[in-house]
Structure formats: C-alpha cells, structure tokens
C-alpha cells in the first residue's frame, strides 16, 4: 500500500521534528502555528516525550532551553507576536550554545496584524530579532513534504552547531494540505546530541571548541557539573570581563557557522540552464513564482527560478553566480521588501534587481508575478 497521504504543513513539521528526535515541546497557542502544539500534545506522550503548555511565549522559550540542557531535543513553535516575545531567550540560546528549534509560521504584522493571513514579513526578524552580534540559521520550506524535511534539518543543525535554528514557515505552507510520502525513520540521517570528549578528571572544559569550533557541552546530570550562562564566558563556561576573550567568543560563534556555510546553504534551481532572467523566491511564494515562470516560458521568455531553502546564512555565493549569468533578477516576497536588500548586496550592481512585493493578506496570483517578469524582460520574449 502506498504511504501517500494528505497532510497539513504544520503537521508535517511536527512529524519531521519527532523523526529527528525531538522529545520535548513547550509552547503557547497562537494562530497560525497552533496545529503544531496540538499535534505535539497528542503525539509526544506516545513517544514517552513531554508536551507542556506554558503561561506565555517567554516561558515557552525558557522551558525548551531547560529541557535541552537536561538532554532532550527540544522545539517550540509560534508566530508574529510570540516570536517577538521569544527574542531575548533566542539570544540566550545563541550565547550559551543550547540546541533548540523555533518554528515561526509567519502571519501578517506588525503587531497583531492579520492573524489568519499569510506573510513572509519576518525574514529580517529571523536574522536580527535578538540583540547583539550572533549568527543565525533559518530554513524556509515551500511544500508540505519540505516542511517535514526542513524540520529534520533544523533539529540536526541545532544539535550539530549547538545553536538556535529558526524554521521560517509561512501560513501558506503551514495550513496547506497536500499529498506527501514521508520517509521511513531508517532513511533519515539524525545528528545525535554531542557528548564530552573527555572526563572531568581529564580536564574537561564544557565550552572548549572541538575541531569544528562547536563545544561539546555536557548534558546536566552526567556528572560534569558545568556552569551555563548568558554572560560572555571562556572555555570553562564561567563569565569573564576581558576584551580579548569577549572578541574571541563572539568570533567563534560566527565562525562555527561560517565555516560550514556552503554545506548548510541550500538553494534549488528551476529552468535555469538557458535562463537570461531569474526569479528569486522562497517558502510558499515560490510555488506561485514557479507557476509564473512556467507561464513566462510558454510565452518564450528565458526565465528560471532560484529558490532559497536556507534563508540564513544568506546564499551569497549562489546569488553572486546568478548575477554573473543573468540580465535581471526579480525578487518575489510576501512583504514590503526584505530579502531584496540582501540580493542587491550580493548582486552588487552586476545586473538589474527588481522587487515584486505583496503585503495585503492575500498570496500572489501567478499573473502578478508574470507581468513583473515580462516587465523585467523588457516586455518582449
């Protein structure tokens, strides 16, 4: 019997997280992410895991960080206002190097905005939402199946780099149901929790970086008696008020992601072989952009699509290569214009960059993107 079934994006995200080993969820109800909490509430105890509904978004973030320190892979999910409230502790996770995944099913903002309507307006918040200098990994799925896949990737990256990872979904994909076939657990590569490389007696330092610049921080209760803090700290984990160590600590946080950037920056290309123009898209919007590209191709316009699965770190190399190849790039995003700034920075004037933006509660129609493709291509095939 075929394993194909109809599944919602939020549900597939939950399945991916569970398949990647998440056994702890703390959250607070908020549209349009609530189905993730509801599915976790039902499923986690079936796996012997723990679901806890917290008193607010800040507590939801705190409780998953505590669970992660005690050895459980942990995830929380929210949207707009909730993600804003979580920011302080997202920074804590970056500084104290605690693995955690934060799912943001984006809705229209600012503030309460349009709670049930789709948006991609949190691209820059995902990167810069918390204070201070820190790296960030953010992934954005375009399909229900990819909601599963990126949830697995998000959990794996959070564990591998001991860093918060944002799964930047949007309402389009979160609430979409479509046919999926999920892989068996045996087909998945799951990154295990990192373990200390030596014992306390051998001089274990919890924040001493391994070769990949990521520290092997021991789980609580394993006899290592470590100290964890959001203060800038040295290899011992204890705070220091020293300019050199402060600079080195912040350098290392960035470097551990930067040296792996090529590996974790996922980009997919469509109809690009002979393309003279390109649409850059991500998330649910890429579905419509692709439809528009196919329609433009039918009209003889040599256009393709570059789809960013990894939003952060930004795909600088892919966009620079694109700028060298095409005459113009159209950035489609369901916001006032956020990712376009990054594209312009990477393109650095090597080709035209135009924005196709929408922020009116509704998703793009293919015709809207098609007419911008036609304008970019000079109105002729």
């Amino acid at each position: 019997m075929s394993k194909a079934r109809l599944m919602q994006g939020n549900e597939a995200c939950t399945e991916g997280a569970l398949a990647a080993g998440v056994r702890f969820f703390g959250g607070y109800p908020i549209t349009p992410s609530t189905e993730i909490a509801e599915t976790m509430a039902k499923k986690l105890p079936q796996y012997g895991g723990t679901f806890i509904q917290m008193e607010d978004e800040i507590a939801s973030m705190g409780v998953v960080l505590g669970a992660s320190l005690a050895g459980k892979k942990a995830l929380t999910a929210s949207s707009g206002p909730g993600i804003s409230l979580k920011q302080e502790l997202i920074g804590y996770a970056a500084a104290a190097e605690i693995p955690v995944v934060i799912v943001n099913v984006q809705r229209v903002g600012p503030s309460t905005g349009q709670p049930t309507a789709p948006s991609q307006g949190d691209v820059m918040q995902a990167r810069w939402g918390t204070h201070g200098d820190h790296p960030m990994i953010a992934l954005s799925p375009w399909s229900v199946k990819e909601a599963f896949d990126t949830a697995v990737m998000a959990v794996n990256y959070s564990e591998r780099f001991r860093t918060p990872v944002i799964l930047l979904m949007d309402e389009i994909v979160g609430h979409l149901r479509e046919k999926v076939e999920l892989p068996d657990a045996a087909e998945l590569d799951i990154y295990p929790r990192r373990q200390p490389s030596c014992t306390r007696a051998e001089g274990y330092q919890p924040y001493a970086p391994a070769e990949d610049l990521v520290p092997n921080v021991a789980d609580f209760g394993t006899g290592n008696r470590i100290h964890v803090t959001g203060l800038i700290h040295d290899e011992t984990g204890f705070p220091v008020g020293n300019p050199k160590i402060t600079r080195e600590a912040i350098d290392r946080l960035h470097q551990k992601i930067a040296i792996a950037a090529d590996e974790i920056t996922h980009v997919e290309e469509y109809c690009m072989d002979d393309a003279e123009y390109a649409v850059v898209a991500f998330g649910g919007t890429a579905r419509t952009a692709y439809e528009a590209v196919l329609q433009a191709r039918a009209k003889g316009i040599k256009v393709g699509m570059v789809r960013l699965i990894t939003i952060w770190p930004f795909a600088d190399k892919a966009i620079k290569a694109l700028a060298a190849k095409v005459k113009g790039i159209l950035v489609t995003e369901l916001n006032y214009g956020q990712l376009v700034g990054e594209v312009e920075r990477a393109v650095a004037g090597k080709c035209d960059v135009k924005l196709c933006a929408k922020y009116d509660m509704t998703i793009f129609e293919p015709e809207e993107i098609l007419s911008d493709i036609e304008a970019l291509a000079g109105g002729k095939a």
Partner: protein
Amino acid sequence: MERSYEKYFRQNRLPHLWCPGCGNGIAMKAIVKAIEMKGLDQNKTVIVSGIGCSSRASGYMDFDTVHTAHGRAIPFATGIKMANPELNVIVITGDGDCTAIGGNHFIHGCRRNVDLTVILFDNNIYGMTGGQASPMTPTGKKATTAPYGAVDHAFDACKLAEAAGATYVARSTAYHVQHLTDLIAKGMDNKGFSFIEAMVQCPTSFGRKNKMADPAAMMMWMRDNAVMKAAWDKLPEEKKTGDKFPIGVLYEASDIDYATAYDHVIDLAGGAGK
C-alpha cells in the same frame, strides 16, 4: 578546619562578589547545608538562577548550574525537571527576579506544582543595579527609583505562592540561619513546588538609603521582628503590627506534582517505557 560542606563550592570561583555584610552568602550556605543534610547526589542536583545579586550564587556552587535570563529561572527549571525528573532542581532567585519580571512564571510554577525547591533571597531591593525599588520594597522605604519612599504596596511572596498552588511555603531570615537551613531541607522533602523566602540584609543598596547601613543592626531587626509561626498564630490581630512578620512553615498541602501527573498522560497515550 575542614568544613564538610566546602565540597559543594567551586573553590576557584570564590571569593564571591557580594558586598561586606550582605546576607546572600548566609542563604547560599544554608542551601548547601540542606543539600548535605538530605544527602542529595551532587551529580544529580541542578542549581538554576535568574539575574541579580542572589542569582550569582549558582556560579559558586559545584553542581550543574545555569545562570538564566532575568526572571526566567522557573521556566528553565521546569524544563530541566520535566526532561529528567530524576534530577533535584533548586532555584535561586531574588525579589525583583521572582516577583517582578518573573512574576508570571512564579505563579504558574506554583500552579503546576512542579517538583522544584525555590529559594527567594529577599533583600527588598535591586542590589546589582544599585538600589532600585522592587515589588518587595516595603511601602515608604527609599530606593534610587523611589527617592520619596516607595508608593507601591509590597508583595507578600509567601501568600502569593500559597494562593497560586505551591504545596510548601516557608519563610526565615539570615539571622535564623539554622532555622532557615531546616526549612530549606524540609522543602527538599516535599515532592512538589516548595517555596522558601529567605530574608537577607542588603546594607549597601537598601540599608544605606533607609538608615540601616549597619548589617548587624539589620540582622537585629530580623531577630526582633520575626515571630515563629506558632506564636504568630496566637498573636491577637492588633499585635500583628509594625514590622512584625511570621517565620516558619507557613503553608503545607499534599498534591500530585507535575511530572507524576504527566506520567499518567504518557500512560494514557501508550508511551510508557519509550
């Protein structure tokens, strides 16, 4: 002289940063003495603290320790306990940390009856940042943000904990050090949310602004105004005046703790043993 509880301190992290005459060290020592009394496994005990003078204690104590963000110790502690219920989880917090920025987490931690032992070091002030008023600064007392005296009414954190669902509530002071130690130890026995308010003197930030700059005088004030619970209950209402306050076990109840209650959920869902 060998002191048996010294093994619970990170000797290389001492001396502590607290001011001369501060009561936080007394409360911290009471906690490790209670841990020793109860024979808790040093490798299975976690100290979780927030931000502020009190919360620096976690760095000096040789356990798994986490110095969280301001007000957030209880959510972190809840996650640690629920992820690994075999751990003994002790929270060290301050009056600003617990009842102002962390107030919501405090009442909901009580409500869930998570098996935590929460010790609030109450110095009536934000000490770390130089003496601003907290929700536990008594009305009329001065602070840098209350130069004419605090306008707000102060929280009674013990009554708050009781009303919110904590199953063990106690108060003592840095003067009554053995009493404080015993109350903390008793709190560790309770399988549920145990709350102990440890009144500590802050001569630097609170005392100096309120004509009590001498730490010994502040401790004598504790001695003179604390009334044991049994005596307090017999005191006529008209005598419960001025600075007088009760100490001892103020409330005890029996209720299922959150991790045990959640085990039933796991049973219902068929996830036991996984």
